[in-house]
């Protein structure tokens, strides 16, 4: 049960000439299997929040608790997908997909089998020997997803995973993310700059304030989860509401890339 509780999480970076307060008391609860989208102005601390949730960054104050356990190190079944996908250019598709299992010393045969299953699920089973530089942007994103699936992740943290893709590939992958979530029921946190993406993939959409980041507003989005949601009135209503909230936070002028 990958339920997540974030309690007054604060992070201050000690920069070279000044300290930067990235997060100032973020409170957030996710039920097991819930999908939320996180949106906010550039530099408000979204990536920082994910790094802390992944156990890669020691918070200055507060805590992240997953499955009742306080996160201080990377957790076995938490998968983090970074904006540039975090693939290793020197490993092939298959080796990249297997990497998490190999690092955790799973037996080779089992790693191979689980990586193959995951690659098949995302449609990459015919590209095992290629290197990431030989893949399209969408295929790289699928590979990053496969790595998370191979680990049987129950908490998926995604930092603008689709922002580098063209519009068609992007919708394609949004559909893949949705169908994976519906099939597997993992808990999902998606950081995005796109209003439509946030509304399509977040059962709740969390709006963050400019730095130091807090959760400034929450849009409840009960219609989310249906593949046809994009064409509905409710979808457009939620987009309009979200756009209004972002404008109020000053995000539409500061943050680039919203669609």
């Amino acid at each position: 049960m990958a339920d997540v509780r974030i309690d007054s999480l604060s992070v201050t970076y000690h920069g070279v000439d000044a300290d930067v307060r990235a997060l100032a008391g973020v409170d957030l609860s996710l039920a097991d299997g819930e999908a939320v989208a996180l949106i906010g102005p550039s530099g408000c601390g979204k990536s920082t929040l994910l790094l802390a949730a992944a156990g890669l960054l020691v918070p200055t104050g507060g805590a992240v608790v997953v499955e009742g356990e306080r996160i201080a190190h990377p957790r076995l079944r938490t998968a983090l997908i970074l904006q540039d996908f975090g693939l290793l250019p020197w490993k092939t598709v298959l080796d990249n997909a297997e990497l998490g299992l190999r690092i955790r010393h799973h037996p080779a045969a089992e790693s191979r089998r689980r990586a193959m299953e995951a690659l098949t699920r995302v449609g990459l089973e015919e590209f095992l020997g290629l290197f990431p530089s030989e893949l399209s942007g969408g295929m790289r994103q699928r590979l990053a997803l496969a790595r998370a699936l191979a680990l049987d992740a129950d908490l998926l943290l995604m930092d603008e995973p689709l922002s580098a893709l063209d519009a068609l590939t992007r919708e394609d992958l949004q559909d893949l993310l949705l169908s994976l979530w519906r099939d597997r029921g993992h808990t999902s946190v998606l950081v995005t700059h796109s209003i439509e993406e946030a509304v399509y993939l977040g059962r709740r959409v969390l709006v963050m304030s400019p730095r130091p980041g807090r959760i400034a507003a929450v849009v409840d989005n009960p219609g989310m989860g249906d593949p046809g949601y994009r064409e509905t009135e409710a979808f457009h209503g939620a987009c309009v509401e979200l756009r209004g909230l972002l404008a109020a936070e000053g995000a539409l002028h500061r943050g680039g890339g919203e669609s």
Partner: protein
Amino acid sequence: MRGWARKAAGYVAAAAIMVVAWELASLVLHSPALPTPADGLGEFVRQFPLLLPAFGYSALRAVSSIVLGLVVGAPLGLLLGRSERADLVFGPLVFLNYPVPKVVFLPVLLVLLGIGNASIIALITLIVFFQILVTARDASRSISRASVLSVRSLGADRWQVFVNVVVPGSMPEIFTALRISVGTAVAVLFFSESIAGSTGLGYFVFDAWGRIQYGEMFAGILAMALLGVLLYEAIELIEARVCRWARAGR
């Protein structure tokens, strides 16, 4: 196979251009120190039985120095680039010594190690070591934070990050350092063999020069050039295997 053929054609063309330039230069200069290609290559073939063992000595010295410099310098450089603490302790030591021209220590090495293989190899190793060390340090520093974070998020410890990210990610730059070190190694080889050797191509050239045997001398120079080219190509070949990924997708 087509890429291979194109590369071969490039080499043939380059060799042809060089022979023509050589021919012209020898005609213009008209000096016994620069024979025509026909004479030079003829002499090379005639001297071959004597050149071969000299070539063997020189190759052995160059290769063992480069390997030693690599085996010690690369891991140390990667470590310094990734560990602030190690860099604080050893960094100043490296940067004080890096700019010092190591060749001037040849007399010291000769006194300590005697004339012969040991002092020649020690001198070349010392020089190549610093080149590789400094490059490896910079390479491991510029490893992207994202790849380190993503591997750490998979549960990797420091050692696994080192093996899976730092080492392979620094490989292309280490190979660049190796290629540069071939040039350095052959140059220092010539210098140290002509002073501290009674074997090897450097000695061969120096000795022939002393005896005013310009034909022999030139054959030795050709052999030395050949040694440089062969070492360089060997490193290219190894790189193509080890860093296959760096050429993929271009």
